[in-house]
């Protein structure tokens, strides 16, 4: 059943090449189908695997669905469902790559095999580059391709080192056998670099502003779904497979990522690029929490990531629509009150003003850091928040109150208005009832750190075959 999450989008992507007229409908149907499949598995609690070709683990490739990969797959597929119902102009001609991206992201989240995850990561890179090249954004897409290619090489190298040290590519098997000494160091370092490009960690995130700022569809897909998948993989590898080793490097890198990202966002003068840098900084916050390695920290990391993904979806949706509809953005929200309110709510949640979801996750992260006697992370987070306040207020003032130039009001497509407002309301709901997400992320964090039941689940599962 779970292999359909990967197989159906791949098949539909292939079909859409020959049936271009229907590709938009096909994309919506595939996304809807995937969401239904994921929902039918609602927090399985146990580890369910699909052994490809009926090869019993540790042989062959297996897809694993447990609480953690369920939550990640749920977020990814819901985002793609929303993307698929956006107006046709937004994604015209890119349905095939988006469907491939959906299949690859699902595979990346679900796979229980290191080499398989490398293959899916490369497919993600290739399709993401194709999407990023929309609106003639070729140069920035090319930069992303080169960086993604290098990251892929490092990821492959890490995989082969793990194979050399343990004689297996299966994540559960590697977690059971365990790496040690210099091979553990080499593997974790190489994985940090390999995942660093997709997870937007500091020196590897040079591609982000160019790609996110280049068109309207790539930030809402890459900045939300793919980021979530990459950061989930970080938790899966370092939490489940390597038992929390090698996290110190990640911690330092992510602190630097937060500060550099926020500084760059403050200096940036273009709307999409500002929030691209902000997305870098938030990925740093999540990676820093993941690198603490405790269950509570992981729980809060993914709670914050969920809030950030929702806020970023609204921000990029609204910003992408405005940037490509108007030449001058000053005072544009006076024409679009609903979009403006949603945008402001999402940005306030990003900063962590009370009444919005971001407050709940930020305050909890700071309390958690204090309770483990870590004072560096709260300091960095608070400095980052102060910088965030700066650029968020500046953009809100400019978009609401600056003198507007006369331009014809362009019509807001229904879905953009609906999604942005509904998600902005959701952010308020999460502030009032944080358990909406915390229950899920709690289960996710528990599953990520519970190596024993992961290993037992994979090896004892009898299900398999097509």
């Amino acid at each position, binding site marked *: 059943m779970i292999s359909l999450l990967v197989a159906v989008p791949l098949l539909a992507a292939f079909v859409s090449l020959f049936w271009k007229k229907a590709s938009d409908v096909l994309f919506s149907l595939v996304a809807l189908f995937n969401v239904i499949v994921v929902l039918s598995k609602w927090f399985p609690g146990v580890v369910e695997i699909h052994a490809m070709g009926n090869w019993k683990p540790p042989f062959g490739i297996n897809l694993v669905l447990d609480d953690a990969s369920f939550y990640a797959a749920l977020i990814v597929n819901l985002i793609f469902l929303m993307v698929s119902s956006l107006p046709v102009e937004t994604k015209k001609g890119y349905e095939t790559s988006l469907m491939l991206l959906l299949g690859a992201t699902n595979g990346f989240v679900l796979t229980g095999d290191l080499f398989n995850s490398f293959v899916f990561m490369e497919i993600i890179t290739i399709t993401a*580059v194709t999407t990023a090249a929309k609106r003639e954004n070729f140069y920035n897409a090319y930069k992303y391709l080169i960086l993604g290619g*290098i990251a892929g090489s490092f990821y492959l190298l890490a995989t082969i080192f793990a194979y050399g040290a343990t004689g297996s590519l299966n994540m559960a098997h590697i977690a059971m056998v365990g790496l040690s000494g210099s091979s553990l160091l080499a593997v974790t370092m190489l994985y940090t670099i390999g995942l660093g490009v997709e997870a937007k960690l500091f020196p590897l995130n040079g591609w982000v*502003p160019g790609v996110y700022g280049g068109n309207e569809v790539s930030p809402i897909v890459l900045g939300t779904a793919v980021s979530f998948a990459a950061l989930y993989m970080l938790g899966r590898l370092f939490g489940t497979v390597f038992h929390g080793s090698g996290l110190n490097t990640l911690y330092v890198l992510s602190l630097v990522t937060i500060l550099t990202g926020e500084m760059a966002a403050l200096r940036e003068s273009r709307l999409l690029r500002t929030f691209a840098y902000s997305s870098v900084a938030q990925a740093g916050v999540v990676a820093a929490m993941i690198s603490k390695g405790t269950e509570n920290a992981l729980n809060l990391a993914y709670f914050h990531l969920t809030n950030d993904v929702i806020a970023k979806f609204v921000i990029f949706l609204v910003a992408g629509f405005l940037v490509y509809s108007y030449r001058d953005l000053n005072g544009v929200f006076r024409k679009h009150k609903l979009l403006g309110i949603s945008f402001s709510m999402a940005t306030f949640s990003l900063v962590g003003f009370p009444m919005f979801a971001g407050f709940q996750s930020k305050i909890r992260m700071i309390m958690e850091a204090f309770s483990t006697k870590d004072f560096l992370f709260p300091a960095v987070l608070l400095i980052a928040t102060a910088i965030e306040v700066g650029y968020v207020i500046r953009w809100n003032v400019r978009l609401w109150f600056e003198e507007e130039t006369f331009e014809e009001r362009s019509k807001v497509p229904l879905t953009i208005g609906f999604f942005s407002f509904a998600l902005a309301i959701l952010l308020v709901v999460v502030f009032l009832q944080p358990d909406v997400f915390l229950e899920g992320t709690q289960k996710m964090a528990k599953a990520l750190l519970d190596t024993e039941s992961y290993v037992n689940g994979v090896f004892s599962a009898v299900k398999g075959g097509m």
Partner: protein
Amino acid sequence: MIYVISILLAGIGIYGLLTQKNLFKHLVSLTIIDTAVNLFIIALGYREGDAPIYTDRVMNFSLNFVDPLPQALVLTAIVIGVGVLALGASLLVRIKEKHSSLDLEEMKGVKE
């Protein structure tokens, strides 16, 4: 020996990425790094001795023979490398059309 060659090749690739101003040379450097990694993987599984085929000479699993799995992995990695190369080349064609050059210093109208 082969390890040394693959590390050297990776070094050449990274040097090329850092120093060259021509975008096409970046793609070539990326391919060199890919080749270096592939060579490294093959070298890791290689043993002087038998091919990875179960014959009557190789009945015992603990005997010295070439590990077939890295070779299968490299095949996959090569295919992916070709895909990346093709996409990169097609993007370069479009960059050349739009910015009229592939040299970073001579490209026109690049929005960072």
